[in-house]
């Protein structure tokens, strides 16, 4: 077990390095720089700015300088938000995105898994189609359409909920969490349904039925665990994505998370901020993939990560 973990840790480093390198050079290739504005800067001031932020050095040198910085966890100053460092901005924004993402994940699981299971049990009946249709709204209507509709209905017309803004209160969290969760509910319901159908047709379930076990016990005690395997492997990257926030939700509900930094950071050419969130995303993916593999081993006793078996 330990060996396996160490091996995974070791292979994470080249992955991260590749990610950092590709992101670093790609964003600098994009035309335009962080300090372009409608008010043209006099050339001497531009030169001064470039010198201040080392933008006049050859790219490879900037790259090396950057690597040396992040090894010490210093992600540098933001090029766009001049009063804050990237560490500051991520420290402020990440908890916000994490909270929202975590709640959305919970909601998606709590709704998606039961819905998918239920649909699987009634495969190809009208109730299957009906329930799945509702579940799939999340991936048939873009979230930047759902969000304004939800705001219009619940905040403006009914006046039950606020129209956005960030606060740790139930009323402010409901709409953004629901908007975030909708696509995930769709994927989880569908994956659960497909996987549950497969499990329900497998020999050991047939044996259990033949033994006369009640359907409910079969589903909950025997079918659910193996059926959840594909859901868990979906959750790995999905959790990383949702925890790093959504541009749409943050923009429409005015939530100060880090999701916008991926997009706005790129559009503002805020090199350091963009690198910071990209690295965070990479780290989360690696961690969650690792957790997913561990969960796999726990849920399916046939899988073991030992050297003798090797890993394909």
């Amino acid at each position, binding site marked *: 077990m330990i060996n396996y973990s160490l091996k995974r840790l070791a*292979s994470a480093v*080249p*992955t*991260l390095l*590749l*990610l950092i390198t*590709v*992101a670093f050079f*790609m*964003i600098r*290739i*994009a*035309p335009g720089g962080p300090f372009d504005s409608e008010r043209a800067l006099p050339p001497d001031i531009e030169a001064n700015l470039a010198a201040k932020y080392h933008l006049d050095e050859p790219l490879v040198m900037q790259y090396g300088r950057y690597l040396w910085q992040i090894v010490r966890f210093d992600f540098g100053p933001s090029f766009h938000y001049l009063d804050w460092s990237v560490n500051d901005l991520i420290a402020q924004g990440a908890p916000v995105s994490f909270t929202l993402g975590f709640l959305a994940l919970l909601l998606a699981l709590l709704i998606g898994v039961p819905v998918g299971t239920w649909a699987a049990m009634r*495969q*190809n009946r009208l109730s*299957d*189609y009906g329930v*799945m*249709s509702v579940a*799939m*709204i999340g*991936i*048939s*209507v*873009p979230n*930047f*359409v759902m969000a*304004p*509709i939800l705001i*219009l209905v619940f905040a403006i017309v009914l006046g039950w909920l606020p129209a956005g803004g960030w606060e740790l209160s139930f009323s402010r969290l409901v709409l953004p969490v629901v908007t975030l969760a909708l696509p995930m509910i769709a994927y989880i319901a*569908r994956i659960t*349904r*497909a996987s549950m*159908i*497969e499990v329900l*047709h*497998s020999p050991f379930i047939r044996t259990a039925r033949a033994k006369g076990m009640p359907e409910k016990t079969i589903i909950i005690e025997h079918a659910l665990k193996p059926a959840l395997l594909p859901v868990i492997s979906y959750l790995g*990257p999905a959790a990383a*994505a949702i925890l*790093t926030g959504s*541009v*749409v939700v943050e923009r429409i509900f005015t939530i100060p998370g880090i999701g916008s930094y*991926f*997009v706005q950071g*790129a*559009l503002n050419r805020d090199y350091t901020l*963009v690198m910071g*969130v*990209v690295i965070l*995303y*990479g780290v989360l*993916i*690696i961690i969650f*993939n690792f957790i997913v593999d561990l969960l796999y081993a726990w849920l399916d006793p046939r899988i073991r990560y030992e050297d003798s078996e090797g890993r*394909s």
Partner: protein
Amino acid sequence: MNQPDIPTPDAFEQALDRRSLKGRSLYVDAWHRLLKNRAAVAGLLVLATMAVMVIIGPMLSHWDHEIPDWDHYSTPPSLETGHMFGTDALGRDLFVRTMVGGRISLLVGVVATLVSLLIGVTYGAVAGYFGGRIDNVMMRFVDAIYAMPFMFFVILLMVIFGRNIVLIFVAIGAINWLDMARIVRGQTLSLKNKDFVEAARASGATEAHIIRRHIIPNLLGVVIVYVTLTIPQVILVESFLSFLGLGVQEPLTSWGALVNEGAQELETAPWSLLFPAGFLALTLFAFNFLGDGLRDALDPKDR
């Protein structure tokens, strides 16, 4: 069937042909299964209708998708003005724009998926087939790319290379191929150890021959399912790009762009959202149900 002592390549070919024949009835089997899934059938019909509509729709109306009708901007659907779906904020006929937008959305969906298909299938088949260290390195590479935030790189590509529609296909496809590669690789791995492949190899068939005639046809099932389920994802990605202002350029439009414009007029001109959103949602539903149905139908374990 006669069993020659030492099979000649020709005899083997025939035996294998019969095997593929059996494979073909496999597909007939799957087709029947699909037909039982009423949602999938409905999805198929919807898609067919949609395809026809977006192609001939604009020809049925005398309005043009880019010329504004200055007297009638943001008007609701009405027969008197001749604007069946109403007009948008600039006075352009919404019916024609929805149809033209449909063409673009479906085009982006299909072409981008094909691009990712091409890259993904080749990559995955090669990795799975050769196995061992090659497979290891190739999959490690995929893992590394998986750690990159997809949207971020699409946005960067759009910014670096400018916004033209061909680039959208390529950008989305070039970043979307990972799942396909993984699935294809998994299938190839399990396929290559099957008996008939062993047999083919024993009879002296070349690697390329085996890949072409045995591996790839058996991948078809997985690939079809995957393609059907990726197209709606790609359409949604394009609509997200439109939300950010990076989607197709004016005067071209897509359902994503129309929906984005419509969402801003939700209260004052709800038809500008409802019509394109309705078409978009219907199409995505159809693709998803069809894809799920195909997967159920082609699922090998279900026998």
